[in-house]
């Protein structure tokens, strides 16, 4: 077997890693730690995956632990479930998360219900690239959280930093429940996210949000790419308005860390949810309902949201930019709430 691929030794060498490399390291370390962990997906072997997350893994771990599958997301996800029944811990890659759709049936009906139906815990990770801004058009740009958020039994993770990505991947693989990990393509190699990670075997626990910026005037609840847009907006508001925005990065979407949300809203009295996903039926709704249930008396202004528009993701740059939530949208909404 080949040695460790360079792409997973940066932390050892105390070099900064991108979010993508952090994911590679997380996967690699878990495979080293636990021989029950194995990978399946399209073109993950020789090619190393469409985004090269598993580059070099085939050489190191061999064909039995890095399995190139036929193009059949439903079939190989079902097979992953079967392998998990028998004590293995499969990690499945969707080439683009948009292509998780053919596996919708097996994920929601079979995998999510396994424990409840008495067929045992189902440790299984499904991961892959999501998100827009890459001119990928309607089928290479989707965010898929709302296809699964509604289904009891699933966990959903959406990291926004290299540190979190590695820690969440490792926690997801160790979790005894099925976990979906959404990895934003626009963050994969974003230079500003490069960081030197701790050398120790850390995890980031599932289900815990993270306050990435403290503030007392407004709570922005967000995740993924929008964490960074929100922080930039917060910076503008700090500079130009002297208004302090608290930015909460959910990190895990399901289960939702409503305690953290409620705690922050109780402090600021104002809530803005920002998500890249389309508006209607997005996660902002659930968050609003929970805050209404648990912190209504603390609200000093309407709960609002900044999101993509209710449309498929268009291809052309100008259309996609219009489609996606922009920093100015967040600033506008925050100013509106500040003045409320």
């Amino acid at each position, binding site marked *: 077997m080949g040695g460790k691929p360079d792409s997973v030794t940066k932390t050892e060498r105390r070099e900064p890693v991108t979010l993508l490399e952090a994911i590679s390291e997380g996967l690699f370390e878990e495979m080293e730690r636990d021989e029950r962990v*194995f990978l399946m997906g399209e073109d993950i072997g020789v090619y190393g995956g469409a985004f090269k997350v598993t580059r070099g893994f085939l050489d190191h771990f061999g064909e*039995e632990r890095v*399995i190139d*599958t*036929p193009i*059949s997301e*439903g*079939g*190989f*996800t*079902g*097979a*992953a*479930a*079967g*392998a*998990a*029944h*028998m*004590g*293995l811990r*499969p990690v499945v890659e969707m080439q683009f998360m948009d292509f998780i759709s*053919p596996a919708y*049936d*097996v994920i929601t*009906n*079979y995998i999510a*219900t396994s*424990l*409840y*139906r*008495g*067929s*045992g*815990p189902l440790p299984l990770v499904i991961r892959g690239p999501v998100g827009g801004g890459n001119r990928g058009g309607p089928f290479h740009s989707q965010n898929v959280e709302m296809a699964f958020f509604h289904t*009891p*039994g699933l*966990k959903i993770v959406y990291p926004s930093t290299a540190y979190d990505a590695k820690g969440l991947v490792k926690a997801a693989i160790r979790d*005894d*429940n099925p976990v979906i990990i959404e990895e934003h393509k626009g963050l994969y190699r974003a230079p500003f996210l490069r960081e030197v990670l701790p050398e120790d075997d850390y995890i980031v626990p599932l289900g815990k949000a993270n306050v990435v910026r403290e503030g007392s005037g407004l709570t922005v609840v967000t995740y993924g790419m929008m964490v960074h847009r929100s922080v930039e907006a917060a910076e503008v508001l700090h500079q130009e308005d002297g208004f302090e925005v608290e930015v909460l990065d959910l990190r895990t979407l399901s*289960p939702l860390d409503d305690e953290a949300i409620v705690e922050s809203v109780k402090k600021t009295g104002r809530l803005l949810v920002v998500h890249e996903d389309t508006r209607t039926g997005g996660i902002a709704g659930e968050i609003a309902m929970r805050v209404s*249930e*648990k*912190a*209504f*008396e603390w609200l000093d202004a309407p709960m609002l949201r900044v999101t993509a528009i209710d449309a498929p993701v268009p291809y052309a740059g100008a259309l996609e930019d219009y489609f996606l939530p922009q920093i100015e949208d967040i600033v506008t909404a925050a100013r509106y709430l500040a003045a409320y």
Partner: protein
Amino acid sequence: MPATNSADGTALVAGLTESQLHELYYALVRVRAAEERLELLHKQGHIGGGVYRSLGQEAGSVGAAYALDRRSDGTGDIIAQTVRACGALFLMGGEPLDFFRQYLARATGPTGGKEANVHWVDYRRGLVGPVSPLGTMVGVMAGITLSFRLKQEPRVGLVFAGDGATSTGAWHEGLNFAAVQRCPMVLMVEANQWAFSTPTRKNTRLESFTQKAAGYGLHAESVDGTDVLDVYEGTKRAVDRARAGEGAGMVEMRYYRLKGHAQHDNQEYVDPAELKAWEERDPIKRFGERLLSEGWATQKTLGALKARAEVEVSIAAEQAVGEPIPDGVQALDAVYTDRGAKTPWTRLETPDPIQA
């Protein structure tokens, strides 16, 4: 116990000894007795959900499972049963008691009332109950048997699926995965000529399901599903190949669904003459007659086996009827390994969501 010759005698047919043949007969009459009892319980109003029979198909499931290495410690072969493969379920070690508990939604049953009928799982006995969406279990079994290959365990998995289920994408993707990955899996096509009210010719244009096997590069057997020995032998060949590392295979069992899709279906749409012809080929009658005519069993033995099966089933049914149903609140359990669902706040003593 591997289904090879037992120590107590010589092989009479298909490599099976007299006591093994009697065991097969017992398995056949037991599943029939269990399902007849089930029907009765349904008529008596004991059952909330759907009730399914495998009448006419018992030899398929019994003969197939008999070809397996059946154990109860989680190291043997494995099946994914269907409602038409109830005979296999019992033969693997699934208890008639649990069967009734499942249909009766008893708290004591393997799913505690959360799931119904043969939808239950017991990895130690090699049972992986299905979900309803058809075709799903083919992919799941591909993965189960992939793990056998990866872990170099000499185990085989049998996945039962109806002829109608062959039309699903899940079936195709699962079978192709098993073929490419050379998984030790055998797909049992339950070719009972109907998918609910839809005849086979409306589900596919081919003549025999073995024609599908070629499209996956698979070896296939076609067996007379009303002849328990033919099913046993054909399945055994396929299972042996799979165990020997030759990859996945397929067995088509040719028979006929003699009852409606479920209790609520009076199968008006079936040609009575056709039904009649197939009723003549009742697998239990056929096997019984063969046992007698070859001198492998006496009328008395068969009568005793049947009586024993009926007693076993009867005791199980009565016990299940007397057992408790689950407490509503158990609906909250086991949604995740680390947490259940939340109690609705409207059912708490202090119905204050702000304090909840």
